[in-house]
């Protein structure tokens, strides 16, 4: 199956490991993966901060890069959420009917990684091996915007060697919230502190999630706390195999 990979600006620039892991999983499952070079960013940061007009160039570049693909996959629940639920709003605000139509054609073909694996490829066992204690935080936009439900957990539970530990109050937001983390740092950190406390309570070595942005926030707190708990993107856990040992 031919798949276009959307790296997301954050993944591309700050967390390329998660993107390479996504590529690896997709290729291992037999997909032919392309990286359309014209891609940039979904525009989410602009849109969610209220700069809809300034998000138009990003939306324009997104549809230009991905128009025509049946399957576009991104390792981020929040970027896919923004593409599916906000690109039309941005295009309309930009007053460009052509762009609105293009958004209508492209958005339905964009999938978050766990959705694509479970719903489109129909697999939950991706042949991964990861002999560690892991706890999973379901990020808000995956959960409540995309409604991915337990798909990431189903994927993780099939990983060989893994010990999945239940995260208390898992569905509570980690406190990242994009520019919220900068505009309201005190509340953001207070929420993150509660989240990382719950992570520590599980005894996990690795905190896993499907959004590099939320992981950046929680990981930043864990690193500052010097707890020795690593953060890993879902794709990075799914990418590892027994042969890697």
């Amino acid at each position: 199956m031919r798949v276009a990979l959307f790296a997301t600006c954050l993944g591309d620039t700050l967390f390329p490991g998660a993107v390479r892991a996504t590529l690896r999983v997709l290729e291992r499952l037999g997909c032919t993966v392309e990286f359309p070079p014209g891609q940039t960013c979904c525009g989410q940061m602009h849109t969610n901060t209220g700069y809809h007009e300034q998000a138009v160039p990003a939306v324009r570049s997104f549809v230009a890069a991905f128009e025509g693909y049946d399957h576009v996959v991104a390792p981020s629940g929040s970027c896919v959420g923004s593409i599916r639920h906000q690109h039309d709003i941005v295009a309309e605000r930009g007053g460009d009917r052509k762009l609105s139509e293009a958004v209508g054609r492209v958005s339905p073909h964009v999938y978050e990684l766990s959705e694509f694996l479970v719903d489109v490829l129909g697999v939950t066992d991706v042949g991964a091996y990861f002999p560690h204690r892991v706890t999973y935080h379901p990020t808000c936009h995956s959960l409540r915007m995309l409604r991915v439900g337990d798909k990431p957990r189903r994927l993780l539970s099939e990983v060989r060697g893994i010990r999945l530990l239940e995260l208390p109050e898992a569905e509570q937001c980690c406190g990242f919230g994009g520019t919220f983390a900068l505009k309201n740092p005190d509340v953001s950190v207070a929420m993150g502190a509660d989240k990382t406390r719950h992570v520590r309570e599980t005894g996990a070595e690795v905190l896993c999630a499907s959004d590099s942005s939320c992981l950046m926030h929680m990981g930043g707190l864990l690193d500052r706390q010097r707890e020795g708990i690593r953060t890993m993107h879902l794709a990075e856990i799914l990418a590892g195999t027994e042969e890697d040992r």
Partner: protein
Amino acid sequence: MSGVDLGMPTFPDAARQAVRDAQLRHNLGRATSTIRNKRAAVVDELDDWEQLRASGAAIKAHTLSRLDTYLERFEAAVTAAGGTVHWARDAAEANRIVTELVRETGETEAVKVKSMATQEIGLNEALASAGISAWETDLAELIVQLDEDRPSHILVPAIHRNRSEIREIFRREMAGSGTPAPADLTDDPVQLAEAARHHLREKFLRANVAISGANFAVAETGSLVVVESEGNGRMCLTMPDNLISVVGIEKLVPSWRDLEVFLQLLPRSSTGERMNPYTSVLSGVTEGDGPSNFHVVLLDNGRSEALADEVGSQALRCIRCSACLNVCPVYERAGGHAYGSVYPGPIGAVLTPQLYGVESEDTASLPYASTLCGACYDVCPVAIEIPELLVHLRNRTTRERKGWFDRLTGTAMRGLGWVFGDSKRLGRAQRIASLGGRLFGRRGIGRLPWPMSRWTDARDAPAPAPESFRQWWERNRTGSGDER
């Protein structure tokens, strides 16, 4: 009503103080998680909750789309039933009408049923300056009034107080406005309730004027519906001879059939009960039963302006259940006072800027007081898309505000938008960033100067990768190198 400066600190400043108050965080965390779990349990009991929720949303949306018709129908029905309807454009007008109505009775005090609308317009203060004492009779409202505090929750205005704090307030303040608290009062809830009961009983028996709001106003019969848990509302609505009700124009429902839906949605969402302990319905004047002098003040106060906004008008569906507050992780940490308005939490963040505009710093900061986690939408019984509304109001903020900081941010955002508009520009920016990344290695960054210190004060920041994915792909997959 637009352009009013509420004179409050902005949300981030107020929240900073609240987050540091360990007692407050403890009180709030306990109270919200209890009520959150109660709600979840009773909602789970109903197989058709989602249908009920959709009906609630649809009925409200329909009513709002023909509000003028239903308001006129309501007025005609109230008048026919012996009541009088008054129209108030804003807070000042509503306060003037109510003050005048109380004066006409010759009384100088009134008992009050808990009401968001009267708080919104600052009625108690307006009455006080006219020499009229208005006594709150809801237990939590009484606590707040005695302490000269501000409410911090729609349903439980004193949620930020615990039992021993309440005992102190009763002991200190009750004597000043009526029956004092017993000298040996403990913080046992039964004793606290008993003290409040004695204090209030004296006022109920004396009062000849009651002031209320309404949870719903039924257009077909001109009926007001008040739901509550303590029976104080029933006392206020039935004992005094004069009743004045201040009702927001969005409280209308067309018929009793519609009301039925909300009487299921509201108690489960707000107190986590299957049914409200007291549901009082008042349909005009009945000889020898209840008030003989009945007035309804219909309040606009910014609502028709909100109604004109296609996205924003959703907020007017709100039935003030407070479920969105109880699930909001930001509310739980920041507390209600940080929102600087009688409407705190997620609903406050979308309602206050619409009622008062975004000209002032404090109201403009409210749409940003959210991580957009979406928990509020999931519990809202009338399915208000609060996250979408927040983003919509953020957009309004960026378009309407023109201060230096707003312009600076706008310019930065435009610059960044320009970079994201073209992959070549982004690629160049990434090459510069990855140079920095090689400098830092893969360690996290500990401290950065302002404004990034807002991140690094408590969190390490990731260094840019020494090689972006794009660079890696070009090197490995476009024929110019081997895959590693």
